């Protein structure tokens, strides 16, 4: 039973990590500008992310250690210092975009400016994190997250042409405006392969105290959880392709995305979009804030754990509180959410190698993982991710600035 419930960790990781502001925005942008042509990027990203999540879960279950913990321990402080620093910076940017997403959702329903909501949202997030245990966060967000299935329902109700749909899973190398095309492709992969996903998932597995008996379940959870996120992201892409593209609406601004669901659900569509976006971003903000606290506490060996009372791990609590405060500030000063999203995703893609390489090495440490160390399949995927990550690092920032921006 406990093992069945463990699925919520997969779902919440997926909702927060997969369906964050970035993934939804880029999927919608892809659909609006290139109809189904970019579906393959979501497919590819999903495949990779499933493998990576499975690995981080397997690692946590086999060693009872979360990733940042093991990396510091294994590679020593001086090795870990730079990646840790860079990752924390990108975490702050990402947290900013997620908080921005919540604020934008509230702006849609309330009509009040986005920046107005920055402070209330920040306070709400902190109180939620303080008051709740890890399990309550898991259960509530994974339950709320089901709302995002509205994108899938809408996509189906539009009866997208199957032929084009399937063709979309084959990479198109000759698209008009190739710079924009690849810019979006890179952003999608970058948005999905977020480093914090693996920190959060592995730390979560430790919080739910998994042991090696979870390794089998972990596979299913990784596949189902990430699959869930992937399907919703594809749903968003398809809806954008069916609703925005034919009208010649490209996504230059989040407001245009807000119209997506109004064809499928004339009355509820607008609200559903706002709530779906809000929930996804809420889950993501919690996830990023927590994984930042996890990474910091584990790096310095402090007490950590969302299930502990803040009194028992005050420093842990202080980290996520500070992170949320800083990131809310970014929104408060009124940075354009879409630009912030693209920048954040670029930095995420840029830091991916810092995570991928130590990860790959750790997963092959037989002294540590014994029979649970990586097999050749996982290693092949990990190597692919690493190579991809290196490419992303080189191209993500310029492409995001020049192409992805549209």
């Amino acid at each position, binding site marked *: 039973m406990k093992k069945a419930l463990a699925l919520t960790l997969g779902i919440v990781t997926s909702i927060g990590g997969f369906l964050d502001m970035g993934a939804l925005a880029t999927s919608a942008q892809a659909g609006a500008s290139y109809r189904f042509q970019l579906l393959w990027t979501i497919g590819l990203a999903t495949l990779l992310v499933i493998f990576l999540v499975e690995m981080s879960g397997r690692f946590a279950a086999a060693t009872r250690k979360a990733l940042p913990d093991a990396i510091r321990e294994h590679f020593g402080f*001086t090795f870990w210092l730079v990646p840790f620093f860079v990752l924390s910076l990108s975490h702050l940017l990402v947290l900013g975009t997620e908080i921005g997403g919540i604020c934008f959702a509230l702006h849609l329903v309330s009509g009040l400016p986005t920046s107005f909501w920055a402070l209330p949202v920040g306070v709400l997030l902190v109180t939620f994190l303080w008051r709740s245990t890890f399990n309550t966060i898991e259960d509530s967000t994974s339950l709320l997250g089901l709302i995002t299935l509205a994108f899938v329902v809408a996509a189906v109700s539009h009866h997208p042409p199957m032929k084009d749909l399937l063709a979309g899973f084959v990479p198109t190398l000759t698209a008009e405006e190739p710079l924009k095309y690849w810019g979006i492709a890179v952003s999608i992969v970058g948005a999905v392969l977020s480093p914090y996903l693996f920190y959060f998932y592995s730390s979560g597995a430790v919080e739910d105290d998994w042991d090696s008996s979870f390794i089998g379940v972990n596979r299913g959870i990784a596949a189902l959880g990430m699959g869930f996120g992937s399907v919703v992201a594809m749903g968003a892409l398809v809806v954008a392709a069916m609703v925005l593209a034919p009208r010649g609406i490209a996504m230059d601004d989040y407001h245009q995305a807000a119209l997506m669901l109004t064809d499928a659900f004339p009355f509820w569509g607008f609200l559903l979009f706002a709530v779906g976006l809000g929930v996804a971003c809420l889950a993501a903000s919690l996830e990023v804030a927590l994984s930042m606290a996890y990474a910091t506490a584990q790096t310095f060996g402090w007490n950590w754990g969302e299930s502990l009372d803040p009194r028992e791990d005050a420093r842990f609590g202080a980290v996520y509180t500070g992170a949320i405060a800083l990131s809310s500030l970014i929104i408060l000063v009124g940075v354009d959410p879409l630009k912030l999203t693209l920048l954040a995703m670029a930095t995420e893609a840029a830091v991916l190698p810092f995570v991928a390489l130590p990860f790959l090495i750790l997963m*092959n440490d*037989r002294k540590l993982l014994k029979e649970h160390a990586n097999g050749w399949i996982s290693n092949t995927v990990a190597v692919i991710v690493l190579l991809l990550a290196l490419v992303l690092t080189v191209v993500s920032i310029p492409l995001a600035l020049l192409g992805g921006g549209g």
Partner: protein
Amino acid sequence: MSTPKIHFEMLLGRMVRDPDGVAVGRIFAAHAEIEGGDCVLREFLLGPGALLERFGFPLGRWRPTRVPWDLLDIADPGHPRLRCSAAELAGRRP
């Protein structure tokens, strides 16, 4: 208790040179043994091989250079010196 004390972590990554200044390799690991409650240092591991071993990576042809504790002068952690020549050390190894 006038015995000198040094910071082990400051040794890591330092280049070991022999009396003639010939570079032998960087220190990346050290093996110790627990005897009678004490943790006693036995040997230092130098070179890329040592790093690979520390990361638990399949070693392949990269083997660490092993230096027994008594052949390495670490009184100045910044500049660890070999007590014998690099050649002798190479000769010692099986």
